[in-house]
């Protein structure tokens, strides 16, 4: 058993009457030789670590060692409590949890890469926001991680998931696409709808460059994680409304791959282009590294 494209995934789900998450669980059983209980327990462990990172991050307002990130999760959390967020409860809480995770990551705290550390805020953001807002139970969130990993598995094997290889579109883009499909499946959407949500989210981030200031996974990464959750929720809402991606998801992934290949080295996590070489970006780099030499 192997699944190499979204088309194959949807054919399998249709034939076997399985969700995307259940399909990943089956595939993992077949490929790893581990039994289902063990695989579920390993995924639970990851969800628990994700929750711990969120819990730490929502309370910790200390800056990262660089001084260029930290404190925004606490700020956002207080604003959400005030009850006035324009984006509503789902997205505003997802942004808070996402900031919390990404800020913990910048402090060299323990997080779970989903699919990478640079994009680690997006999935916990949406999952724990679903739990907070409509009580989605723990075991459903675990299944959500199987949905997310199935979608990410196809993306990673057909394209890339790291900023150094394909720009931020490959990193935050992939994570937001996985999260969009996951929300859709958890909210009762069909596998087709989940894959449309994945395509819609990925299309919205196509071309995004990886330009971290001073090479740190902080500016603009932390906020791009927060915004990634809102794109995931928006794409899921569109798909659940029955809106379809005109370009099939496999072709969107192929486009992401080609755009990434065409992207100059300066815009692929080398900190030699984009926001990294703005006046302020360069000043930060000089303050952090050049003064030490």
């Amino acid at each position, binding site marked *: 058993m192997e699944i190499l494209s979204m088309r194959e995934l949807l054919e399998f789900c249709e034939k076997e009457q399985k969700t995307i998450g259940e399909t990943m669980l089956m595939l993992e059983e077949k490929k790893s030789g581990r039994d289902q209980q063990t695989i579920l327990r*390993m995924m639970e462990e990851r969800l628990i670590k994700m929750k711990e990172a969120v819990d730490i991050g929502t309370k910790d307002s200390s800056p990262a060692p660089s001084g260029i990130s930290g404190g925004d999760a606490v700020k956002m959390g207080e604003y959400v409590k005030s009850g006035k967020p324009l984006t509503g409860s789902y997205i505003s809480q997802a942004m808070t949890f996402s900031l919390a995770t990404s800020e913990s*990551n910048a402090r060299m705290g323990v997080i779970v890469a989903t*699919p990478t550390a640079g994009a680690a805020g997006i999935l916990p953001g949406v999952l724990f926001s679903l739990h907070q807002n409509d009580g989605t139970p723990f075991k459903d969130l675990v299944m959500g991680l199987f949905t997310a990993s199935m979608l990410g598995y196809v993306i*990673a094997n057909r394209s890339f998931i790291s900023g150094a290889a394909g720009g931020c579109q490959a990193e935050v883009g992939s994570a937001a696409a996985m999260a969009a499909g996951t929300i859709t499946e958890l909210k009762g959407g069909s596998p087709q709808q989940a894959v449309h949500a994945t395509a819609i989210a990925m299309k919205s981030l196509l071309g995004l460059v990886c330009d*971290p200031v001073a090479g740190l*996974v902080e500016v603009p990464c932390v906020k791009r994680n927060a915004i990634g959750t809102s794109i995931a929720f928006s794409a899921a809402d569109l798909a659940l409304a029955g809106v379809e991606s005109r370009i099939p998801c496999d072709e969107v992934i192929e486009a992401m791959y080609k755009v990434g290949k065409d992207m100059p080295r300066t815009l692929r996590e080398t900190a030699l282009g984009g926001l990294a070489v703005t006046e302020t970006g360069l000043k930060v780099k000089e303050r952090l590294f050049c003064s030490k030499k």
Partner: protein
Amino acid sequence: MEFQSCFDIIGPIMVGPSSSHTAGVVSIGKFIYELLDGCPEEADIIFYDSFAETYQGHGTDKALLGGLLGMGTDDPGIRHALQLAHKSGLDYTIEPQGSCLFFDHPNTTMVTAKRGDHLVKVGGASLGGGLSKIFMINGRMVDIRLSTSDDFSALAKNYQVYRLREEIARNA
């Protein structure tokens, strides 16, 4: 087909800030630790391309040294790996370079490490999402995929025949 498992996508559980520049590099270091049956006394590290440009910001140096000291990707000690290397008597040098001749990937490193009589020169690449690959050991091309859920000790055992005695390696 580099990604073989749902845990290659959801995971590893790791110390931040970067799965490719931190976690994947811990695995490369840990593989070398296992290859040498312990922590090396000397390590000359070359970082290529994206690693060369951003290793300080991503803690890539701490990650590689943490791995060489035997740590896993989720070990909070990685934060203090520079000091811990010093305490453990691991002498190291770091040299940033352009692109790597032997492997076409932006996140590539070459580590020459010595422990006792043994010397190994290992090429590794971090492929993203915490997944890595060892592509060269002492001048031989290899293809060893490292996922954090693998048993590195067992994997490395298969390649210990590639280790060279120091004087032979220096002259090779």
